[in-house]
């Protein structure tokens, strides 16, 4: 359980800065996800933390000691970390118990102690009865549990996971997601978890670092990322949203002919002025058949398109007098026909100004 600090970390392949000046600090025992689309540099970042890739700039330190810097990289085997790979990398020539005991053996623990700890951890991941099996005889989910046991049993300073669930089918993925979080709650190992799946990141993490094109766009708790996205990318990547061009003038934000106090909209920088973007979540828009009362900003429009998704209706509404098309969701029983006139009610508290 250690504090991991990443400063200005950069990796370039040729002119390509695939990881670009990353800053991130993990507190002891914290679980942080690197979340981003495929190719954004997550794996490269993780492999730099593990010591498999040398950085071009910046540094990584563990409990205050630099373990990676350009030209000075502590090899992976000396870092006291563990890693879970996308391919699981369970060694097919060893039994489950031998796989799990490998790291303990390297730490020169007495045989009796190794057996005891292997048995314990296999119980924790519910694999005790399969200790003598070979990996080829295991299902994907069971292999994943072996990989977890093998990584945790050595009590690593930091646990690294690279898209560990991407090879599992949907049901199992959901189950293992909770399993991983449960193990974290039990052992409190400082953890970096790489994934491109936002619900996976949300279910497991204390904080999520959203990455895009080699950079970290925002680091925050899952609900904060959703409600207070700070960039256009984060707003679009986490959940669905309407990104509306707006104007910020005299402390007021205006779009489509309505205006609201900028101070009411989180994340807005009232000092700025000019063209801005606001993110409006579809479920924060109230749909009404008649003009609603109250002082909330309202836009009038016509339903252009609708899709029933089971849990919600998904409406696209074209606002009058502008070419704004907004997505809005409504419960299954709230039915509007295409072409029907509706009033959209906005809640400034649930909007966010993004860059």
């Amino acid at each position, binding site marked *: 359980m250690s504090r991991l600090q990443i400063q200005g970390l950069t990796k370039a392949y040729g002119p390509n800065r695939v990881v670009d000046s990353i800053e991130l600090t993990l507190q002891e025992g914290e679980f942080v996800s690197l979340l981003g689309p495929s190719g954004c540099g997550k794996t490269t970042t993780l492999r730099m933390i593990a010591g498999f890739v040398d950085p071009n700039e910046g540094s990584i330190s563990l409990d205050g000691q630099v373990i990676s810097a350009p*030209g000075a*990289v*502590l090899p992976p085997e000396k870092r006291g970390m563990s890693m879970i790979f996308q391919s699981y990398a369970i060694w097919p020539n060893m039994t489950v118990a031998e796989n799990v005991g490998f790291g303990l053996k390297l730490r020169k623990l007495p045989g009796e102690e190794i057996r005891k700890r292997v048995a314990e951890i296999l119980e924790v991941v519910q694999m005790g009865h399969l200790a003598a099996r070979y990996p080829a005889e295991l299902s994907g989910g069971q292999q994943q549990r072996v990989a977890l046991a093998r990584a945790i049993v050595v009590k690593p300073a930091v646990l690294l996971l690279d898209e560990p669930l991407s090879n599992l089918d949907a049901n199992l993925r959901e189950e293992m997601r909770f399993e991983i979080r449960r193990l974290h709650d039990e052992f409190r190992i400082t953890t970096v978890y790489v994934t491109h799946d936002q619900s996976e990141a949300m279910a497991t993490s204390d904080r999520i670092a959203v990455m895009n094109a080699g950079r970290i766009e925002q680091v925050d708790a899952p609900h904060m990322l959703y409600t207070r996205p700070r960039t256009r990318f984060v707003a679009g990547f986490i959940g669905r949203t309407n990104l509306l061009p707006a104007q910020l003038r005299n402390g007021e934000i205006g779009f489509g002919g309505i205006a609201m106090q900028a101070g009411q909209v989180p994340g807005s920088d009232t000092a700025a002025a000019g063209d801005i973007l606001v993110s409006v979540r579809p479920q924060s828009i109230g749909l009404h058949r008649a003009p609603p009362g109250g002082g909330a900003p309202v836009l009038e429009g016509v339903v252009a398109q609708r899709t029933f998704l089971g849990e919600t209706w998904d409406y696209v509404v074209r606002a009058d007098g502008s070419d704004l098309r907004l997505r809005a969701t409504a419960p299954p029983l709230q039915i509007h026909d295409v072409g029907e006139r509706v009033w959209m009610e906005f809640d400034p508290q649930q909007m966010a100004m993004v860059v």
Partner: protein
Amino acid sequence: MTARRSGWLARFEPVTLLWIALIAILLFLVAFPLGKLLVVSFETRGTGEFTLMNYVSAYGRSRYVDALVNSLLLGLLSATMSVVMAVPMAWAVSRTDMPFKGLTWAVVLGAFILPPYLSAIGWILLAGPNSGFLNIAWRAITGLEDPLFNVYSFAGLALVIALNAFPLVFIFVKSALDLVSSEMEDAANILGAGTWTAMRKVSLPLVWPAIMAGFIIVFLEAIALFGTPAIIGIPARINVVTTQLWQFFEYPVRVEVAAAYAMPLLLITAGMIVVQKLMLSRKGYVSQTGKGGERRPIKLGPWRWVAFAWCAAVGLMAVIAPLFVLLQASFAKAWGRGLAWDNLTLANYRLLIFEHDMAMTSIWNTIWFSASAASIAVVLALLVAYIVNRRLVPFGEALGFMAMAPFVIPGIVMAIGFYAAYASPPFALYGTAVIIILAFAARFLPIAYANSSSAIRAVHPEMEEAARILGSGRLHAIWMITAPLVRKSLLGGWLIVFIVASRELSAAIFLVGPRTRTMSVLLYDLSEAGNFEVLAAFGGLLLVVTMVFVGIGMKLVGRDFMLRRN
């Protein structure tokens, strides 16, 4: 737990040193002999002055030019014959309900294992013009004077080569046909094409590149082959490039002329292999890998017995008949008297095993030369494959390229290169075991490399990384994780190199000394002496040695470990 700040020395990783060492070894094994061959061909003997006279000597006589033409014709004829034999077999095994497919496989494997010079000797016993069994039977039946078939002829030579080389075409074509899904034929059927039309218009065109690739490989085998042309061609006065090269090595040895004379062989081989690679990678044929696709054997009805008869006939001629007469001769007092109780003897074997001064030595030589060469080739290939596949150094591909280079060098050319480079001082390796072992290792390095490379690729790098992050160093991880995982396929590679090295003749014959003769060379010596009973017995011993190792391979690695196409 702090990282070392390191200067240039620490950046100079051990793997860089290894890389340099490997480059040096590969230069020594591959590039230097080849370079030396080229240089020597332009040098005056003794003085080392530049000259073109070697080329003038090499091509100045019509006999020498004729030999070159003969080689090319022989190559074309053998390759054509191989295609004619093998394509129907491959089609029948891959696509139809022909009975006894296992037997056909056994025949192909048998022809693959039988060294060419042994099938040549078998065919001399079968179709020698005067006393060959077939011709004697023919005369007895028809009462005619002329032989049915004279093996000492151009056609005879080509047929014997084809009967030994057709498995190469078979393997290429069968693996291509295996990828053609029945739906492709169905699509033709539904448009009105019958079975035969569908085969002619759809299946065969799809595997056309594979047929051509097999044709080229047999062609190259045939023009680089020494044993069969020497055993059949020399008595028949058919001179080809390889036998002519051998004559340049008769006293006084004229390496420089041989080097010049070997150039076309080298250029043709390299050129054809490039052509073959291009052909196999042509885009238009990608569809044959069309995925999935159900595969149903075509019902041949009564024709399936015709297909079987064809396979059986080829098998009879390629393996069963020659092997049978060889064995008969090896246990005979006089082979011409055929099978009879009073003709049986163990004397031939006894002579070889207990009395002959070279026979047992040559067996021992063959085993330890081949084993050493296989070990060197596999270790070298493994290191190169590891470095290349794991991208441990920039320009690793250069290593891979050098390891594959001997693939385009005919064995006989390689041997002359080794002779030119290492026979004389300062190395003075002529007549030593070392020069043979190194030449074998170099010659078969591509086989070992292809094998190691696919073995390494099959082990995900994360397997090793998982060990490293848990605290094991790079070498420890390789030893604990990667090595056990590639062991079996490496063993297969080792055995294949061992087996092909143990029957190698065309490289060995130029490099052996009086005490370093291998079985294949001794067999050739015996064939010149003309005592066919002892010769056949020695062939029997050679086969036993080969079969032992083939058997070990099948047991440890899998039944078809020699016929996998890679």
